[in-house]
């Protein structure tokens, strides 16, 4: 479903990953629920153990979480039993998982997605934990961690911005300038096409259709502003609104500059084409860095904020999804779980995590930023300068609505971008089914 937060170890052959991921997904369809439940349920509450459900199944996050939990064990004397489940399987079965016998603490995402489970009573409020860790977080981070009832339900770990990435050397060779406005942006894309590059790297094949949401979010945010975007995402305004049509019109303007064959390509392959200098730019998250296998390349990667479309909104919003932790509704070891969450909400935990996985930015204000690479530094500045921070299409909205209605619709439309009104009508007709309450 959603993998914008996937933490991938550098992998050279993404297509293989896609297949295996798909297969795990099939397993998920049939087995996820019993599987997860079976793993989660310990035989009895052991006061010396905290269970931790992790979606970090790839090598990099797995070792990063291991570093964090073992430091916690050393610190507190409490053992952490980690139950790692494949990222997609975890997300797909989250609802069943939380209703069964979930682990005490589990990984999750900020935004509507977190609030949904808080509202359904599947997570426990964390106000006591926040009494301890609160001083380390900015107001924006605090806001992100609260449910609709104003209580805290979430401990953030890291975030990462979405932007337009490019290779410095390509821009230097060809004399391109990072664009600031829409007209500069489209003119640059046009020039790139003339120069024989695919202007915008694009791959939303297989399970990667979520990746197109980054462009949709930014187009809508820049053209219509934060408030409209959030109302649209939360199902409060009609999708056939004139403003949404404008977003699609802008997108259509951009679509001729998309890399060809995008519907069958993985995001990793698209990212690779940028690294290989076959594409000029890519609208993607900082996790692009996980695709880099040659460290020398990292210094040649840079990004600019998604260009301004309407001066009234400028570039005031940054899309920066935040990942972190929640507490299940009936933790078997509540005290231990609270201690673990307090630890996870500390600068020390973030430093440990970032030490193993450098393609994210810490949220804790006391986290060590001295060892940041240039991209991380710039990311942190971008996020800090933002007036509004959004999570991501499917985190700011009902994930079912996005994955079964919006995404297939947008992906199909993007294949043949014509007048978007038929598509918007289709999406609108489904809205009430998901946002009734």
């Amino acid at each position: 479903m959603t993998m914008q937060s996937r933490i991938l170890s550098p992998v050279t052959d993404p297509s293989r990953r896609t297949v295996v991921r798909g297969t795990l997904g099939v397993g998920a369809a049939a087995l996820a629920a019993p599987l997860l439940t079976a793993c989660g349920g310990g035989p009895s509450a052991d006061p010396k153990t905290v269970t931790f459900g992790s979606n970090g199944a790839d090598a990099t996050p797995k070792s990063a979480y291991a570093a964090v939990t073992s430091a916690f064990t050393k610190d507190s004397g409490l053992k952490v039993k980690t139950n790692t489940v494949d990222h997609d399987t975890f997300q797909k079965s989250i609802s069943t998982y939380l209703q069964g016998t979930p682990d005490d603490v589990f990984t999750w995402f900020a935004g509507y997605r977190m609030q949904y489970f808080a509202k359904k009573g599947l997570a426990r409020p964390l106000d006591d934990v926040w009494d301890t860790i609160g001083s380390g977080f900015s107001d924006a981070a605090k806001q992100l961690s609260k449910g609709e009832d104003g209580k805290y339900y979430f401990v953030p770990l890291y975030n990462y911005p979405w932007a337009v990435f490019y290779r410095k050397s390509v821009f230097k060779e060809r004399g391109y300038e990072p664009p600031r406005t829409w007209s500069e942006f489209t003119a640059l894309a046009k020039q790139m096409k003339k120069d024989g590059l695919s202007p915008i790297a694009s791959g939303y094949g297989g399970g990667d259709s979520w990746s197109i949401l980054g462009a949709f979010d930014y187009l809508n945010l820049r053209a219509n502003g934060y408030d409209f975007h959030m109302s649209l995402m939360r199902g409060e305004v009609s999708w056939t609104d004139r403003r949404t049509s404008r977003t699609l019109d802008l997108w259509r303007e951009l679509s001729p500059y998309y890399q060809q064959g995008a519907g069958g390509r993985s995001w990793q392959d698209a990212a690779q084409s940028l690294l290989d200098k076959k594409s000029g730019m890519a609208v993607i998250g900082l996790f692009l860095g996980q695709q880099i296998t040659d460290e020398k390349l990292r210094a040649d990667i840079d990004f600019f904020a998604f260009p301004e479309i309407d001066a009234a909104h400028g570039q005031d919003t940054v899309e920066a999804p935040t990942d972190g932790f929640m507490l299940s509704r009936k933790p078997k070891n509540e005290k231990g779980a609270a201690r673990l969450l307090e630890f996870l909400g500390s600068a020390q935990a973030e430093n440990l995590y970032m030490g193993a996985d450098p393609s994210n930015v810490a949220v804790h204000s006391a986290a060590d930023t001295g060892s940041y690479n240039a991209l991380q530094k710039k990311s942190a500045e971008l996020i800090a300068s933002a007036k509004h921070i959004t999570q991501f299409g499917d985190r700011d909205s009902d994930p079912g609505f996005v994955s079964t209605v919006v995404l297939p619709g947008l992906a199909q439309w993007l294949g043949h971008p014509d007048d978007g009104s038929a598509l918007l009508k289709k999406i609108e007709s489904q809205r009430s089914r998901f946002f009734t309450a």
Partner: protein
Amino acid sequence: MSSVGSAPPAAPPRAPAPARPDAPRARPRPLRLGRGDRLFLTVIVGIPLLALLVFVWLPALASIGLSFTSWDGIEPSDIRWVGLDNYLEIFTNYPPFWPAVQHNVVWLLFTALLPTPFGIFLAYQLDRKIRFTRFYQTAIFLPMVLSLAVVGFIWEIIYNPDNGLLNGVLNGAAPGHHIDWLGDPDLNLWAVLIASAWRHTGYIMILYLAGLKGFDPALKEAASLDGANGRQTFLRVVFPALKPVNIIILVVTVMESLRAFDIVYVLGGGVGSKPGMELLSLLITDNIIGESSHIGYGSALAVVLLIVSLLAIGTFLAQTFRKEDQ
């Protein structure tokens, strides 16, 4: 050989058979089954019956019941009765529904008209004891043995738009062609159907080959003595005589088409239905599995698939038994 040998002894057992039902009637009705026997019978019939009820009928009926409700799958107290709303919505206002129905039909027709006859054809050819027949059998059956992951992996490599085998070959022949096999909504269903046919052919071939092995060669000899050519022998003699196998193949083909899911799911990236590849089975999982599930809506879709399956199977069974009665 075997059927020739079995023909004469087939007669004698028939004679004593009617005697058996008469025997108990003649006697007074004693307790034919001891307590142990009855207990044994109860257990041996009861357990499967219970399993059938609990694991098949109860969920089926629950699905039908839930299809008239709206429920997010979390608190049973939240189940709301909505009557036929789900069905109305699905039939009138669910964009992927009609494409899914259409694709299921395409799937059935395609499978029944291409890979199934081709599998039979291959089986017939391989049965003629040509050289390397075992090698061919193994090669053609191999896809069926492979796990789904491997099948998906193989076709993913073939269809990859940048470095896939198919585009590589096409580029050699006609440079500049860049076909998005799995991404183009007008194309991807066919691409997946070919991958599915690749598996299906071997399956049908093995089934039919098994039938042909048990076929009485004397019939073929008789046909050729009567002057039938190869085609006539197959169509008039072999094919009708293998009716039980034909029925199995038909059932397998229909079932495989209706439950088509796995290979589409894998090649579609494992996230549910994709534009151009919607199928009823995928729409069901789209709505039931996931972070915000719509159990009622998904159940209604499942009931639609159940009805379609029952119609297909029912029609088929009625046809078969009617012919048998005649």
